[in-house]
């Protein structure tokens, strides 16, 4: 039995700081995805929402919120929360329903209106919450962790600030070409170097912003796609939502310490590498098969880490791969053709879905000036706070 599901539609609301509610962004993205699929909302039998969290709980339980905004029509509803991996878990839930024969057509939606500045935990004294603790006891923001990873790469692999800046230069140039991106302006290495340091050694232009935005997908069984007249749909072949393996020995958001490796040997693959590994294994492909990759560039330095974790190059060779142009348009494996988070910013429940939208357009060959010629296989990679893997393989 094939494990493929078809991507019938993809849609986004442009990302930015629009000052409106997330329901509006998500509903607009959903309507765009339905139009792209050539389906009426009433044809959808199941809706899966990636939750937008306010005040420590999903203040608007996303599936039902979007279903109400689109007009109650009796669809089955699911809502998922997995921080930055919420979108991938929403895709996984939709896929499971389709493969189980519970639904032919499922709408997946994620949207957010992010706060200004640093992300931070909900209020109140909550010393049982590791996310609250890291802020309260250390003041450790997300960029602080990105700074730790960047400085470690410089010490261990010899990466330079210029290498990090080159990632921003590449992604900004791609964002210029994407009408859904928030930042559509070229950036130079000099501009990165001139921006303020946020968390040593990373500067403002090395770190992604927080954004408003929405993304949606219409998924279906491959049979339904055929009946609907789509002979060769983009197919999702694998979804990885794995957790880490004990002991997780790389300091990870939001933890204050790693697991101890005193009693059990660290796993052969780090958590990030295992996310991609699980996706490759399920899809029956390897990094050599990829045409395009969308990775989670919360910081410029982190994009280089993903090159290695995806197996695009060996450990410590990420900067070399970048310098060779392999991950730029026209290179062996273009990365973040959408412009990445560098051009979009974070709209947490939407971003893993937005990555799949970009793969869909690339694999259909409709990505305009940022099209990767002959793209056949794409992967997304992302990671959600508290140990949520997130990777999707799509093929055509």
């Amino acid at each position, binding site marked *: 039995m094939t494990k493929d599901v078809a991507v019938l539609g993809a849609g986004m609301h442009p990302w930015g700081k629009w000052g409106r509610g997330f329901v509006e962004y998500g509903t607009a993205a959903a309507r765009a995805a339905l139009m792209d699929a050539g389906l009426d909302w009433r044809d959808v039998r199941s809706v899966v929402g990636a939750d937008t969290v306010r005040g420590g709980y999903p203040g608007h339980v996303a599936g039902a919120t979007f279903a109400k905004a689109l007009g109650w029509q009796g669809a089955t509803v699911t809502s998922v929360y997995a921080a930055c991996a919420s979108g991938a878990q929403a895709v996984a839930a939709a896929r499971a329903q389709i493969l189980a024969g519970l639904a032919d057509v499922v709408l997946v939606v994620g949207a957010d209106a992010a706060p200004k*500045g*640093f992300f*931070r*935990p909900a*209020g109140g*004294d909550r*010393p049982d919450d590791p996310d*609250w*603790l*890291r*802020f*309260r*006891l*250390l*003041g*450790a*923001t997300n960029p*602080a962790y990105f*700074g*730790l*990873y*960047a*400085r*470690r790469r410089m*010490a*261990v692999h010899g990466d330079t600030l210029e290498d990090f800046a080159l990632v921003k230069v590449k992604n900004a140039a791609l964002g210029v070409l994407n009408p859904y991106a928030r930042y559509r302006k070229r950036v130079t290495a000099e501009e990165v170097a001139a921006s*303020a*340091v*946020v*968390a*040593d*050694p*990373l500067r403002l232009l090395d770190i992604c912003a927080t954004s408003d935005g929405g993304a949606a997908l219409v998924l279906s069984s491959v049979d339904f796609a055929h009946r609907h007249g789509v002979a060769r749909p983009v197919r999702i072949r694998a979804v990885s939502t794995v957790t880490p393996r*004990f*002991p997780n*020995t790389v*300091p990870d958001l939001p933890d*204050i*310490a*790693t*697991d*101890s*490796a*005193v*009693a*059990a040997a660290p796993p052969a693959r780090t958590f990030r590498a295992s996310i991609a590994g699980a996706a490759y294994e399920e899809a029956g492909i390897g990094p050599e098969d990829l045409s395009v990759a969308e990775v989670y560039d919360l910081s410029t330095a982190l994009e280089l880490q993903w090159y290695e974790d995806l197996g695009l190059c060996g450990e410590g060779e990420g900067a070399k791969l970048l310098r060779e142009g392999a991950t730029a348009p026209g290179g062996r494996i273009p990365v973040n053709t959408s412009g990445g988070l560098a051009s979009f910013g974070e709209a947490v429940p939407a971003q893993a879905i937005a990555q799949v939208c970009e793969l869909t357009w690339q694999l259909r060959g409709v990505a305009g000036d940022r099209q990767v010629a002959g793209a056949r296989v794409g992967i997304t990679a992302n990671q959600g706070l508290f140990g949520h893997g997130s990777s999707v393989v799509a093929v055509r």
Partner: protein
Amino acid sequence: MSYTRKPAITGWFTGEGDGFRLLGTRCTACASVFFPREDVHCRNPHCAGGPLKEIPLSRKGRIWSYTDSRYRPPSPYVSDPELPWEPYALIAVELEAERIVVLGQAAPGVTVADLTVGMEVEVVPGVLHEDEDTGTTWTIWHWRPTGVAA
């Protein structure tokens, strides 16, 4: 006004001066070490679990990586918005015996320019913030390069 010293979190560290130590727990079945302390059940999936015993962690370790905070972190970090923001360094430290990496703020006066990956540091008592209203000094752990006087 005299301030009362209180730990910013209960049960994570103890002692004063050279006797200051981070406190973790150790599984009596598999020897896994947990910091922050795990008091319910061993989290090693290969272990059936045994009683968890409180242990002091090594006083010294080596820098895994470091960074700093050039902008004021949001709440629940406590800082006085009336005062100019003073960046502090944040250090991730590998403890050899426990095979664990523990984050902490650097001692006051230590900047990223003073640090390198692999450098030896030791844990020292520090102050997280002082609360005038209640007359409380909230204490925390800091990492400080060894051989540097307080």
